[in-house]
């Protein structure tokens, strides 16, 4: 989460009074930035990645792997190191940040990578440096890993080091102690804001994976009749809306289940605003595809589920819409019926390209008409105005009384307040004030992988995808409703091999023929191609590389990353989610009841650590790609 300044935020009851104030000034600030930077051009290709890490504390005697809460101590030491480096006049290669959960730490490159293809090789190097640097501050029994979620998070025994009891005053969760939330007041405020605004606690029900002897979960709850089954952008009527735990489902009752997941993000600088808007649209379509390719979240609260990705849970956890806003009750106190969570796929495409047909923007998501008009009156085009006025239907979650009154020409805090608490699959980022940074796109939905080789491969793949989009003028447009459908399919168990995704048939923009524009394809077809009908994204990347001047060693290295992606896409090697499932189900301790016991968890985490360090080979996951 980017936007977090110092000071004491207001409690929700007071904060909500300032919502309009912050929105109004946020728009003024946007206009100020927009007018100052809309003509920026020729910015270089620069990019960066973000990875979130967990620290594990092993209790080898009782064969228990636990989440370590020593993060704040470790983070403090790491940040001190960075300060020292900077004081000595050197460039800090890594930057470390706290995150929503108390057991998570975020590491990013100190300076962006770029601007040649050769610098793609720096990605894995920097990721390795992050792990090596953090490892210096770990205890003997600790290790740092990258897993989307901790499999036994919220289980009834000891999964935290040190242990704490659940159901504290802050989270009021039946499964999680308050200590899992980062104690800094701002995270607590976001948590409170989301809960208070919604008016009810988070209720997320994930279908359990039925194995031979899987239990009927929560038999003691009354068979919950859903209050209302509604079509929302995520569930597509698949998962009924319910205020209680459902039988045969894994029930989650706190925002931290979602916000506490680790992910892999990439931010890319475009040469100008037009290019940024184009990339935003094209990458938004690729979101569900990349989610399915990177799937690594099959376990929730110690149970194997029917989902392989975190996205559904994340979206539900950050959903602070009231009943009125969800259309369950008539509008009285709230202004709009909103058909999407704050954390969701994008609502509107924003490019100025002729290839964007108005029919593609079929989400019919509400947007603030007054803000829209104000933007239009101040020189913003209709398409961009609609995007911003959609983002600005949300309330600010963190309000600092001390900084309510800002100079809109020289501050962007109110704008960032709303902008950075819209957690879409892709984010369109205007240049920061007074900097040399340009218009950027943040690609946010990929799941983090176990090894840095894989994480680097996916980052590199995203950068190369943007290069072919620009070089070949590719057109991936499908209606937003189809992107949403893809998303609902992407997180299903083994979606990579079993689901088909809407994808545009002809992705070369200047095709004149009349045709059904899109059809359902498998991930393998999308990435590796389908005989003469569809070239496959990887093959276009290879052809692009042929046109570039690349030295032989760089080319050789890039080839390895791309080969890996191609093998994942074809199912020849497994996603982390599939690999984890298979590990659990073939463990001698597993009782075919979907339950991931403490011992299975311990062995799994140990294995994850050893694969990452290159100590153990896992050919089903990584073929024979070398992990150094």
């Amino acid at each position: 989460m980017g936007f977090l300044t110092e000071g004491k935020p207001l409690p929700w009851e007071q904060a909500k009074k300032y919502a309009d104030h912050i929105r109004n000034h946020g728009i003024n600030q946007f206009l100020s930035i927009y007018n100052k930077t809309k003509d920026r051009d020729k910015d270089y290709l620069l990019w960066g990645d973000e990875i979130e890490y967990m620290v594990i504390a092993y209790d080898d005697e009782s064969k228990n792997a636990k989440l370590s809460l020593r993060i704040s101590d470790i983070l403090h030491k790491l940040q001190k190191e960075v300060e020292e480096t900077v004081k000595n006049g050197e460039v800090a290669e890594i930057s470390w940040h706290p995150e929503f959960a108390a057991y998570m730490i975020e590491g990013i490159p100190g300076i962006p990578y770029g601007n040649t293809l050769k610098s793609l090789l720096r990605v894995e190097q920097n990721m390795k440096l992050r792990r090596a640097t953090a490892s210096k501050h770990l205890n003997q029994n600790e290790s740092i890993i990258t897993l989307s979620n901790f499999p036994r998070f919220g289980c009834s025994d000891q999964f935290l080091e040190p242990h704490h009891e659940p159901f504290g005053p802050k989270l009021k969760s039946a499964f999680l102690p308050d200590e899992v939330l980062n104690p800094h007041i701002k995270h607590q405020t976001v948590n409170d804001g989301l809960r208070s605004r919604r008016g009810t606690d988070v209720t997320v029900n994930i279908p359990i994976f039925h194995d031979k002897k899987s239990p009927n979960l929560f038999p003691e709850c009354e068979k919950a009749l859903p209050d209302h089954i509604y079509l929302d952008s995520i569930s597509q009527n698949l998962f009924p809306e319910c205020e209680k735990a459902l039988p045969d489902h894994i029930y989650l009752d706190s925002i931290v289940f979602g916000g506490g997941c680790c992910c892999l993000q990439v931010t890319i600088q475009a040469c100008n605003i037009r290019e940024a808007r184009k990339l935003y649209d094209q990458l938004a379509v690729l979101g569900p595809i990349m989610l399915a390719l990177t799937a690594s979240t099959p376990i929730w609260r110690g149970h194997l589920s029917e989902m392989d990705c975190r996205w559904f849970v994340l979206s539900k956890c950050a959903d602070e819409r009231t009943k009125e806003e969800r259309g369950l009750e008539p509008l009285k106190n709230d202004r709009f019926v909103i058909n999407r969570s704050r954390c969701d796929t994008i609502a509107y495409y924003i490019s100025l390209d002729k290839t964007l047909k108005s029919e593609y923007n079929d989400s019919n998501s509400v947007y603030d008409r007054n803000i829209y008009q104000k933007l239009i009156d101040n020189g913003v085009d209709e398409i961009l105005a609609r995007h911003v006025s959609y983002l600005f239907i949300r309330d600010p979650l963190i309000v600092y009384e001390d900084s309510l009154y800002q100079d809109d020409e020289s501050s962007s805090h109110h704008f960032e307040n709303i902008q950075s608490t819209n957690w879409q699959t892709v984010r369109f980022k205007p240049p920061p004030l007074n900097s040399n940074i340009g218009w950027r796109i943040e690609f946010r939905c990929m799941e983090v992988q176990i090894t840095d080789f894989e994480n680097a491969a996916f980052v590199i793949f995203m950068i190369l995808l943007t290069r072919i989009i620009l070089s070949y003028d590719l057109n991936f447009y499908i209606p937003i409703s189809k992107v949403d459908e893809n998303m609902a399919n992407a997180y299903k168990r083994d979606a990579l091999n079993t689901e088909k995704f809407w994808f545009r048939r002809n992705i070369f923009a200047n095709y004149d023929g009349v045709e059904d524009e899109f059809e359902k394809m498998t991930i393998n077809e999308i990435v590796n191609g389908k005989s003469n009908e569809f070239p496959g994204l990887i093959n276009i990347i290879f052809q692009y590389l042929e046109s570039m001047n690349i030295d032989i060693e760089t080319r050789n290295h890039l080839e390895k990353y791309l080969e890996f992606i191609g093998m994942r896409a074809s199912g020849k090697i497994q996603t982390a989610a599939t690999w984890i499932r298979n590990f659990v189900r073939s463990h001698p301790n597993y009782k075919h009841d979907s339950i991931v016991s403490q011992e299975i968890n311990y062995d799994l985490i140990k294995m994850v650590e050893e694969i990452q360090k290159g100590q153990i080979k896992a050919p089903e996951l990584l073929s024979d790609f070398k992990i150094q």
Partner: protein
Amino acid sequence: MSSPEFSNVNTVIVYTGNVMKQANINTLKAELASCLENSLKNVHSSYNIDQTRGILEVPSPYDLSYKLKDRDDFEITVKLFYLPSSSTSDDNPSTLPPSYISQSLHHLFCLLGITYVDSFIVYFNGLLFDDQDQDDSNLVMDDFEALVEVWKELESQYRNEKIKKLGVSEFTKNRFERFLDVVEIPPKIDQINFKSCCDLPNRMINYAKEHDIELLTHKDPADILPLATFQKILKDTNFPFTSKLLPRWVLKYSVLVKCREVVANKG
């Protein structure tokens, strides 16, 4: 069928247009063949003829005039392939006319509206790269002299600031050493065929590092435009005087946007 205006033509230049915009993801060979076919099919509706010099230019139907603005933002790399039938001399089939250099550059400059290219790489037909070769035995003396003649022309263009960097293709360490003995301006680029299955050519890599040579890769086939393919295209598109035309050279060009790694034009 043959048109009377074409009766004085002795040279035909065919353009592929910007391949990046032609939805053509294929091998280079297939890409070239299909682009040539598209251009030649269209010749009767669009061509330029220089009657005095007897040059017929066949533009691509996809190319709307593409003149580069802001030349400094781009890096332009060209590669000239000397084809097997490049020799215009019946007595000496292994001659490599150096004039192809200025000829191909001239047409490219007109096409893109430029006055220089950043890199010029020359591929001499038949050369193969083998990192292990001990004595460069497949390059006989006559051929070698022909290479040097071509190189002299390149050096002249370099001195006239038409080319910023000179390069060769498929040169092994030995070939390089032989070459460096006789040329004045050394190649700064060596482009070799990349085979992902093989080990990296470490001898050449080390040599390149020591001598500050950029070792680039490509997947261009050795026979980029076989004679049979060319003649079939001429026949299929009903191009006049099919039997008399021989393909002499292919110039491959890439226009890259600097610092953004985007291919703006390729043909």
